[in-house]
């Protein structure tokens, strides 16, 4: 696969689901549990706003072409209670996001895991919104 943000088809476990973070809407209303995705890129913006935070990142494929992505995270209230702040992730940070693509085919994802290059999880906690907490076998 040429794209670093390639949709994975191997059964790789996502993050452990620790705390519920999302209830604003059903996962199935927007995202496709059969379209697991891994993105590696640079953070360009963070919306620390209700009802969910959004992480914006730029990824590059092997040819150097840049793609703009946006990924939904948990509500800022819950993240705050779990010790995270809007400064926990900074513009320019390199991140690895595992999640699921939106059903509409846009460069939009639901982030189930956000990790820095040192392996540290940011905004940890999975979205118990009816969506998958790990990829199903064969996906």
């Amino acid at each position, binding site marked *: 696969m040429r794209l670093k943000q390639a949709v994975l088809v191997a059964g790789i476990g996502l993050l452990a689901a620790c705390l519920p973070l999302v*209830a604003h809407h*059903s996962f199935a*209303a927007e995202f496709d549990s059969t379209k697991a995705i891994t993105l590696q890129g640079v953070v360009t913006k963070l919306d620390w706003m*209700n009802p969910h935070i959004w992480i914006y990142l730029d990824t590059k494929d092997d040819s150097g072409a840049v793609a703009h992505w946006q990924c939904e995270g948990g509500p800022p209230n819950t993240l705050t*209670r779990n010790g995270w702040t809007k400064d926990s992730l900074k513009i320019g940070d390199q991140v690895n996001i595992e999640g699921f693509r939106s*059903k509409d085919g846009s460069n939009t994802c639901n982030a189930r895991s956000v990790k820095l290059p040192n392996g540290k999880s940011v905004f940890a906690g999975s979205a118990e919104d*009816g969506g998958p907490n790990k990829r199903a076998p064969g996906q």
Partner: protein
Amino acid sequence: MKVCTVTFAIAVLLPAMVLGQGSAPSAAVPRTPDGKPDLSGLWQRPYVPDMTKTNKDQSQIGIADLPFTDAGLKAWKSYDAANGDYTGSCLPFGLMRSMNSPDPIQIMQSPQYVALLYEQNTWFHVIPIDKPHHDGATPTWFGDSVGHWDGDTFVVDTVNFNGRTRLDTIGHPHSDALHVIERFTRTDAKHIAYEVTIDDPRTFTKPWTNKRTFTLRPDWEIMEYSCEENNKDLYEGHIKPPPR
């Protein structure tokens, strides 16, 4: 990972607090000047996206097989959130989906009223005590609630729903004939045993019950939650508004 650590601690501690297990002596239950158990405080609750499930820590106990009527089963089998989950449009969650939300609730209590302040979308619901249901009122998202004390348990009876909501995130259905009976029992200084009975003869052949434990969080304060603030899911068309 801090989140996992907290979760693990909760998972270890909560089983001792499970509903129906060894309630603390009544002397430990705070009381208001009129002698009623004091339900006031900010309460952390288990998130219940699917009322048929039971949490591993037993903080929420559901029943696996809901007793659907034919119409109820049809409504359940035909539901597709992708065709318009009303909560994604920031419409009111309604009583049950608000009670099932993961964010805490603030309970305020007087001899005449109990008010539930939901952090989820900053909604509130006021329950008059020892009053009759409104006669002929317009059906609403949260329904028409009245409360009374049954000994040390506060019982809330709610009817007159508009039928536009779902019971939980996964989308279990109900009709506008929904009748909800909630029982709040403060079992000790730090916990409320919550039991809710779903009675909807159009959707279910018999009433069924779900039980939970709420935990007092004096270290938390209720926070503002604006669903509309940056609802990109809807504004950018990633989700559909519900059928009207």
